[in-house]
């Protein structure tokens, strides 16, 4: 059965085109996804991300549990409100999911995991948590709205109560705080996102979500759909679970090595497999591609290299660059001279360092 977020009627009233996304009926766009993309790059846009799963972890040994569960180190989280991006791996080093963990108190952490992996994640986390006596509680009572863009923070801050506004205005990137929204609604405001722009992701009790959405719209935040979200995150060089990585790839093979903390003596799930693969050194790698010719790189297309075939993971048209960009997984040592098989025609592509776009502009070399 298709699930609906509390904002479903709001999307339909705006004339959104709805699609099934991981079992959820979600807006792909409200008209032009390219215009929505530009609205986020140039001003402020908002996404209903209520389909994402909020999981609260409670118990005296929660930090110890997360040291075991996550490939990144929660010991980097020293101040309440601080957030960390991490992978959760299986014993083979494959990625079960990627997530954000918030440190709220020594005995209370919050995870936000993907929608499409909800059941698998909850089962995995609950199973691992048992040995640590950590209580795992999904929070379906929360909705989530991501407000992103150069003017996003100012627009959100304008809706907060005077005292919490000052506090929320000061939080740094990857930090969250409690705040009070319109009509006293309690909000959890995090300076995180999935677009490469500044902004907030706001966790709001479901009963206030429609009012918050409407107030954001009133102050000129443009509703944006999953279509724009996908092109924004790809330009920003951010992975999409299920497309760029899953259990069949390790963080080394998904360009997520920067999220793995091999700190001494920490025995996290998948560590042994990761160390073995790293020592081997000949694993596949994920690279960024730009195509200067016309056409669009798409998921599943074959990438031809001197070391054998690879494949396009996320591929799309980049509205900011006006050409196609992609992530690809290729054999070790594949080099820079790659070609992509598009409907039987081999088209040259360039390997580039990504992100492709930062601060609304093309990055050097892209």
């Amino acid at each position, binding site marked *: 059965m298709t699930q609906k977020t509390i904002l479903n009627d709001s999307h339909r009233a705006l004339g959104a*085109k709805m699609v099934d996304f991981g079992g959820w009926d979600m807006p*792909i*766009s409200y008209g*032009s*996804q*390219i215009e929505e993309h530009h609205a986020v790059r140039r001003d402020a846009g908002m996404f209903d991300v209520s389909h994402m799963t909020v999981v609260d972890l409670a118990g005296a040994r929660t930090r110890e549990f997360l040291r075991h569960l996550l490939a990144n180190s929660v010991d980097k989280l020293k101040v309440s409100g601080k957030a960390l991006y991490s992978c959760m791996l299986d014993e083979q080093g494959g990625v079960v999911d990627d997530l954000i963990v918030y440190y709220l108190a020594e005995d209370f952490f919050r995870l936000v995991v993907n929608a499409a992996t909800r059941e698998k994640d909850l089962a995995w986390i609950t199973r691992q948590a048992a040995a640590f006596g950590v209580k795992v509680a999904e929070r379906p009572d929360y909705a989530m709205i991501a407000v992103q863009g150069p003017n996003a923070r100012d627009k959100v801050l304008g809706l907060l109560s005077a005292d919490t506004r000052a506090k929320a205005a000061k939080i740094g990137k990857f930090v969250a705080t409690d705040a009070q929204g319109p009509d006293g609604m309690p909000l959890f405001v995090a300076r995180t996102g999935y677009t490469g722009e500044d902004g907030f992701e706001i966790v709001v009790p479901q009963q206030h979500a429609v009012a918050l959405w409407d107030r954001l719209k009133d102050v000129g935040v443009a509703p944006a759909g999953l*279509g724009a979200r996908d*092109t924004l995150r790809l330009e920003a060089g951010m992975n999409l679970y299920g497309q760029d990585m899953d259990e069949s790839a390790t963080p080394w093979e998904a360009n997520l090595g920067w999220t793995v903390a091999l700190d001494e003596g920490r025995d996290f799930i998948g560590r042994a497999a990761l160390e073995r693969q790293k020592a081997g050194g000949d694993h596949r790698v994920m690279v960024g591609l730009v195509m200067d010719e*016309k*056409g*669009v790189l*798409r998921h599943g297309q074959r990438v031809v290299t001197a070391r054998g075939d690879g494949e396009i993971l996320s591929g*799309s*048209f980049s*509205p900011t660059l006006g050409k196609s960009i992609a992530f690809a997984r290729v054999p070790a040592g594949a080099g820079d001279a790659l070609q992509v098989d598009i*409907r039987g025609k081999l088209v040259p592509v360039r390997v580039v360092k990504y992100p492709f776009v930062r601060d609304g502009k093309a990055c050097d070399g892209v």
Partner: protein
Amino acid sequence: MQEIPGDLKFMKSHEWARVEDKGTVTCGISDHAQGLLGDLVYVELPSVGDTVKAGNACAVVESVKAASDVYAPVSGEIVAVNDALPDKPETINEDAYGDGWLFVIKPDNLAEELEELLDPDAYGELIESEDH
């Protein structure tokens, strides 16, 4: 949604065909199809002189979301293509039945193949039923 012009014929796969006074057939994709695809960013057209067969793919339109083959509504020879489209594919979003035309075919077997196509009412019913 743009109104469907009465002088068009349609394929179930959402191509339209207009028989011009001089007997050639102008082809494109329907307004409904451009709506389904979303913002178009790339068009691959056949070459003038190509021979096409009714029901076979002869062009590609790509939106941000997806690539879609375009089928020839009738058989014949390509006698013109819309050269303005590769640089401005969004023209199809803006005017699918006018400036967004894709190619013109000089038909081989028009009378017979025209019978296979849907009239505007039948096509209207088809997209209506797809929407529900």
